[in-house]
């Protein structure tokens, strides 16, 4: 089957208990994200990296560290761009990324903390 991705079988022979545990997934409690602040790396992975990761090259790279003296100015620029949008950059509302999440994200971006953040989405890894 060269050139065809074969997905591993979902059947788990002699692992009936495992299968039952999987079926239990439908009883999982709802996931309420509204009140849970995401870590900067998680917000970056979910929202920003799809366009801004260097291998995507849709938007400019934003994880490059700035000198500390420029953090405030750079932070203001990022905050403004996120909330207002700019040309092709969509605007992101507080309902999408809360003020505390955005502030933490800005801090992580300007300080270079996310410089080597994992950019690949889980989807890009081999199944």
């Amino acid at each position, binding site marked *: *089957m*060269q*050139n*065809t*991705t*074969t*997905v591993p*079988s*979902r059947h788990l022979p002699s692992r009936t208990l495992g299968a039952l545990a*999987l*079926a239990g*997934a*439908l009883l*999982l409690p*709802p*996931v*309420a*994200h*509204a009140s849970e602040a995401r870590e900067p790396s998680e917000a970056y992975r*979910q*929202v920003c990296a*799809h*366009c801004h990761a260097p291998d*995507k*090259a*849709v*938007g400019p790279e934003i994880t490059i560290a700035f000198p500390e003296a420029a953090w405030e100015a750079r932070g203001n620029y990022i905050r403004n761009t996120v*909330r*207002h*949008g*700019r*040309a*092709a*950059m*969509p*605007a*992101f*509302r*507080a*309902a*999408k990324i809360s003020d505390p999440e955005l502030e933490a994200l800005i801090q992580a971006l300007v300080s270079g903390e996310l410089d080597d953040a994992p950019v690949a*989405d*889980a*989807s*890009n890894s081999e199944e």
Partner: protein
Amino acid sequence: MSTTQRILPKGVSEADFDAALVRFREILGADSVLTESDQLAAYSKIMMAGDDADYIPSAALLPTTTEQVQEIVRTCNQYKVPIWTISTGKNLGYGSAAPGETGQVMLDLHRMNRILDVDPDVCTALLEPGVTYQQLYDYIKEHDLKLWLDPPAPSAIAGPVGNTLDRGVGYTPYGEHFMFQCGMEVVLANGEVIRTGMGGIENSSSWQVFKWGYGPYIDGLFTQSNYGIVTKMGLWLMPEPPAYRPFIIQYQDPEDIEEIVDVLRPLRIAQIIPNAVVIVHTLWDAGTHVVRKDYYEGSDSIPREAIERIKADEGIGEWNVYAALYGTPEQIEVNWKIVEQAFGASGKAKIMHGEEAEKRGGGFEYRSALMKGDMNLQEFGLYNWRGGGGSMWFAPVSQAKGSETKDQTELAQQILGKYGFDYVAEYIVGWRDMHHVIDLLYNRQDPEETQRAHDCFAELIDEFAKRGYGLYRTNTEFMEQVAGTFGEPLREVHKTLKNALDPNGILSPGKSGIRQ
């Protein structure tokens, strides 16, 4: 600040608006009622060729529960406050998160983002409107469920509920989203809640598996409409197939579109190729990763000579067909032979899969991801093609017949050319239909170019309608005009329903051209 500068909903007095805001704060808490201009700025960013001043909200409400939505609607009725509902607000070329007109209050459902149920046995989900594809994708991976999503191109940041309600499409076999919706919870304008399909039966176990329920089927009334606010929606998910083979077929001549569609149609109708195939023109395929000025600096539409250089440099065709096969490896081998035979007959097609297709570059990687429902925003690269953040999707429907496709392509190129814009387009092949999707890309920083884009879009709507081609969806700037192309008797029916279900006209006035 002087009170005269304050933006109020149309026909609502300042006193009534203030009273409504007090009530909204009681319902939601002060933090979830936004009225400051810096809080509202994100709602005003648009990519369509409209005047910024026409799309400024007066406030934004951020509920987290259905009960809150009911209370909001009751308050709106009391004070006649119009609300414009959005979920994730990322239908960028169709109006983004902006209100339908200045003064409306945004009902922003993005914080209603609970995944209420995912059933891996019957492959269904029950979601709130604020859930994004990325969020659902992460949930599925986290719980190791073998289920695939069908996102549209802005996958990660858009969501299934809003996209389905606007009758959007994706690229897997589940590409026609409304077909795979099952069961809704809807807050009506009078504050009542209904559940469609089997949902009206208390403790129903079949709400997400049987679409039709009993009596008239009404789910469609809540798509592209302003008859209710959908607060929960059921969705069918595709089981992960044992094997998957994405492939690309390239053709080099403009007129080849005719052969492509006529070869493709029977394969698609018979489900040999089961997914929503795309037939992508050069400028779209290149536009996701190439910028226009590298090939042409002029402000008129890009000439044929430049298109030929792009094709040669990028190794892409005039038309690039992206499709995929799904199933067991054996099924895929059988269907692959049928595809090769059908497209190989004329000798014009270059058919590639696997390493050969990957090496070819272009859009193959991101198309392969989309056709298996993975998160990907590569298509936003199109916004760099001309730059300046202007984008309007012109999307007339065509039947899957080569002759019609040739006619539509020529007509679009002629009108776009007249206004100096490029034909950046693809056909998304449904079952027997196609969405001819053209991204009218322009520089929104340039007022003259923005006006030209506006005029061009208006002419496209009218000229296509004259030839019998209607749009499946449009942006808020042109909803009125597009509604007109479908005839006044239909609009009267829409209006009759509006008056019956929302007599005060508070829900998204103007959506799809529907008002009291």
